[in-house]
């Protein structure tokens, strides 16, 4: 009897692809220090799932943002858990990115021919940091408000581009509805799309170039 696997195999050669994936050798020098990149990706997946669940209930307006999160915490089943997972994993993700970068750096895995993958990784690091910065405003509590005020003021002091960066972020004179919708759009649309594309590039480059030899 023909199985669905046979159907797919005839069309896409899936058995060979799976076999290659499964048998793909991992070099002997790979040890536990090599797990930080994978953990970072796991964190990204946790953030995607918990983030989507939070977005079902979160309302990005000055009036409703804080109370909508109170609603998530108090009334929605597992709301506290989902939000706490999102907050904890955000911090752990940044630690794991840094550990991964340090591992890659001190193993010299950035050296040619892997310069472009290092460059992609650094951009991914900055995206992760921007995720943190943009997500910090969303609960609209005292910490979010004043940390964002300090942050946008610092960005406003960048020579030449500063005033434009600040205007782009704030969307007005001070933190308000425009700021919140912008930060929300950056946090749930712009950054997720960008990070997904760059992660695919990051992984394809590792796949193509293999794991670097030790120094």
């Amino acid at each position: 009897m023909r199985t669905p696997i046979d159907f797919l195999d005839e069309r896409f050669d899936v058995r060979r692809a799976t076999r290659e994936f499964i048998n793909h050798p991992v070099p002997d020098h790979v040890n536990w220090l090599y797990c930080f990149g994978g953990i970072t990706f796991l964190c990204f997946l946790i953030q995607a799932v918990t983030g989507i669940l939070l977005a079902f209930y979160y309302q990005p307006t000055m009036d409703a943002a804080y109370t909508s999160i109170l609603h998530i915490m108090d009334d929605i089943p597992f709301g506290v858990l989902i939000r706490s997972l999102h907050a904890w994993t955000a911090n752990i993700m940044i630690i794991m990115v840094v550990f991964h970068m340090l591992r890659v750096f001190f193993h010299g895995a950035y050296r040619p021919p892997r310069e472009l993958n290092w460059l992609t990784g650094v951009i991914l690091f900055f995206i992760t940091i921007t995720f943190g910065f943009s997500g910090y405003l969303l609960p609209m509590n005292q910490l979010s408000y004043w940390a964002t005020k300090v942050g946008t003021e610092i960005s406003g002091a960048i020579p030449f581009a500063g005033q434009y960066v600040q205007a782009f972020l704030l969307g007005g004179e001070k933190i308000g509805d425009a700021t919140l919708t912008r930060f929300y759009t950056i946090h749930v649309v712009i950054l997720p799309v960008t990070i997904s594309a760059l992660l695919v590039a990051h992984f394809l480059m590792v796949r193509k170039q293999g794991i670097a030899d030790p120094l």
Partner: protein
Amino acid sequence: MSPNDSCETDSHDEEHSGVPFFPDHFVKEASVMALVVAGVLFLATLIPAPMGSPADALKTPAGIKPEWYFLSVYQILKYVPKTVGIIITFLIFPPILMLFPFFYKRITAWHYGRLVLHTIVALGVFFAIFLASLAYLGFE
């Protein structure tokens, strides 16, 4: 390629040495992932994310600090003129971090090049942790 070459660690031989991804490597990877999931579930359950009081543009809270990953930059801005600090952290540091591997050959043309590079970064990491600790403790 002759079988004699199989123990070389040359990248061309990677395809022919090492453990298979599945099940050997996969089991390790999966166990680490399970531990991480258990860890964040433990933390999220034990210490739920705090909510704090609602934003108030008229009430500046005392001791406002950015998130921990911005603390070292925040502390630098206390010591150097704001514009200088911002030029270094926003305009000079990121391109260097992104592009230094492109100059690897030139760096290692000098015998101690890589040693110096790695030492600078190691010291930089400790310095960043030191600065962040100062910021956390509230040193001006």
